């Protein structure tokens, strides 16, 4: 009862989900109000969460729920990206006629699941959070149910995700059987030597988590789901579940199984190399921007995994820095995508960008910044993100991983630069509408400025992240 204020943000979020649902059911035509109120409740949650930054490491609920600096920081990232995702996508929802009361409520429940995942210190809590998050995501992917592509993507995501959840549960049961507990701390206390059952369990759980962050070879769902689901859901898919799954991955690998690092390090390195190469090569032939972003996010997750595979605090910190910057790059890119609207229709192919600079110089400029940053060109934020990863990898003398990463960056730069060429050197094609809502403008400006001016004072983020020490 004394520590209840540590979970205020989760309690507040669940209460606001139920309250908003009741308001939406009983009040007619209240979609706009519900949407704005859910943004407000996320803002309140952000403030509640800020209080936690100074608290000590505490475990709650029978050691199943951990509040430490990492969980507070990741919850902060999740909440802030949730706010910007909601701000930027309201116009899109109205135009595509999927602006219903259930949409913000499902978004909030998915965010609640992610908060639970981030704080989980127990296999059962982690699984419950994961299910809460993915159940809402299945529905969101097929939210535009009159659109065949959207329904298809929802079904595909549901079937494949259920399969990966099954594998993950099997891994959990193996670990419970061999370590005698589901609690992370107790598992780490009970492990004294390498047992093949435990390794098998780790492998199964890694398969499930790699599916959630769409790392190769468990990426097959990502391009179709990204392309098929509404763009407002795609931006959500591209950012939030990855942050949550990466946090769980860090906690899962580094708290109970740090002594078995020889067992899982090879797997993570393989996932990382495969994702970096595949994401870079497969994106070359893409024509749809959403599909291209799916491959791009696969490649970016490969870099984040490279930081994880190092097995040191610096590696974890570089990974977390990477996802924090990745968040803003994706936010800016998808905000640009939301601006490609003409006569109540959204455009999402690379051809539609041709000659954008002639009619929309500011939009083209921000796309230029974002794409350069995604390609990792200095002095933009994306360069620093990759730089920290390489630093951590080279410090542990894993040169092979660093070389592969550099090569895949070069390959990936090709398709980012090709988009820039289309924007600046091709003939003008469309003249898009200019009446965008304030939230969209705000999120694009905010994220672009962060990407642009990150190099002025890069140690600000580094100082915060350097407080995250797991080992």
């Amino acid at each position: 009862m004394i520590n209840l204020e540590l979970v205020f943000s989760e309690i507040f979020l669940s209460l606001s989900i139920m309250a908003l649902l009741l308001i939406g059911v009983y009040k007619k035509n209240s979609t706009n109000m519900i949407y704005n109120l859910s943004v407000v409740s996320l803002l309140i949650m952000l403030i509640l969460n800020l209080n936690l930054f100074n608290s000590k490491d505490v475990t709650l609920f029978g050691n199943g729920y951990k509040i430490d600096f990492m969980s507070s920081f990741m919850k902060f990232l999740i909440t802030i990206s949730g706010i910007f995702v909601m701000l930027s996508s309201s116009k899109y929802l109205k135009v595509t006629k999927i602006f219903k009361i259930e949409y913000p409520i499902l978004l909030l429940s998915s965010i609640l699941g992610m908060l639970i995942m981030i704080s989980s210190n127990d296999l059962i809590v982690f699984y419950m959070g994961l299910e809460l998050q993915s159940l809402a995501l299945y529905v969101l992917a097929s939210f535009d149910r009159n659109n065949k592509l959207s329904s298809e993507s929802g079904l595909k995501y549901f079937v494949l995700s259920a399969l990966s959840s099954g594998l993950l549960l099997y891994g959990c049961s193996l670990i419970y059987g061999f370590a005698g507990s589901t609690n992370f701390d107790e598992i780490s206390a009970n492990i004294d030597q390498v047992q093949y059952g435990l390794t098998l369990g780790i492998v199964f759980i890694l398969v499930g988590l790699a599916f959630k962050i769409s790392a190769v070879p468990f990426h097959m769902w990502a391009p179709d789901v990204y392309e098929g689901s509404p763009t407002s859901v795609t931006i959500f898919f591209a950012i939030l579940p990855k942050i949550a799954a990466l946090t769980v991955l860090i906690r899962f690998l580094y708290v109970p199984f740090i002594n078995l690092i020889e067992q899982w390090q090879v797997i993570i390195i393989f996932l990382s190399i495969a994702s970096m190469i595949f994401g870079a090569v497969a994106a070359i032939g893409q024509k749809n921007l959403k599909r291209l972003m799916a491959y791009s996010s696969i490649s970016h997750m490969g870099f984040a995994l490279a930081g994880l595979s190092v097995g040191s605090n610096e590696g974890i910190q570089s990974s977390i820095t990477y996802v924090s910057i990745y968040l803003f790059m994706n936010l800016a890119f998808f905000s640009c995508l939301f601006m490609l609207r003409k006569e109540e229709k959204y455009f999402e192919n690379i051809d539609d960008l041709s000659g954008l600079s002639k009619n929309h110089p500011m939009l083209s400029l921000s796309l230029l910044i974002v794409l350069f940053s995604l390609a990792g060109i200095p002095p933009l934020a994306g360069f620093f993100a990759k730089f920290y990863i390489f630093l951590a990898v080279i410090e542990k003398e894993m040169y092979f991983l660093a070389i592969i990463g550099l090569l895949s960056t070069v390959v990936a730069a090709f398709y980012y630069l090709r988009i820039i060429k289309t924007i600046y050197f091709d003939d003008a094609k469309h003249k898009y509408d200019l009446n965008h809502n304030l939230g969209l403008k705000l999120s694009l400006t905010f994220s672009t400025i962060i990407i642009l001016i990150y190099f002025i004072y890069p140690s600000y983020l580094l100082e915060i992240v350097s407080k995250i020490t797991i080992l």
Partner: protein
Amino acid sequence: MIIQSIFFYIFSFIAIVSAIMVTVSRNTVHSVFFLILDFVSISCLFIMGGAEFLGMIMLIVYVGAVAVLFLFVVMMLNVAQQENEWFQSKKNSATSSSHIPIGFLISAIIFFELVIVIGGWKLKPEIETFNNISLNLGITNTHSIGAVLYTDYIHLFQISGMILLVSMIGAIVLTYRKRSGLKRQSYIKQISRERAGGIELIDVEKNKGVNIDV
């Protein structure tokens, strides 16, 4: 002791036979009947073993919800109907359905099973012998599950509530469609209706009739 093993073998025999019948039976409706019988027999075994909570949950969830749902689906999809016609054309009995005798047989067995097992559980609870696990026998295992579920695992219990809420919202979002032209009953309209607005006196001319759909 001997009574207990007799009942144990009876229930397990019924469970195994009905499980075989589920797959062997050519009529899908009969298969579902046997599935229900199988579930009931297994839950009787659970109750005999002292796990009365598990047995009751099995009855409620599997027999009460899942199997009846199966039965509905099978009957709605008309799978059984075709099979049935095929059987009937051989036997030349066009009217009588072959579902009814099997249904009666299985429900009679289920009834006797329940009478035996719940009667035994209520009258002679000491008959159960699986006592090698250290349990507090003073309280039933429903009590002990509740004691753990609502204290140590309360947060998981609450989270599962949220998961159920989300799945309910999701199912409604994906399937609910507003149909236009649907006439709904409105009590207020019906009650506030007056004689003057509803009845009209018309002088009918000879051989002309009245046009009523105005």
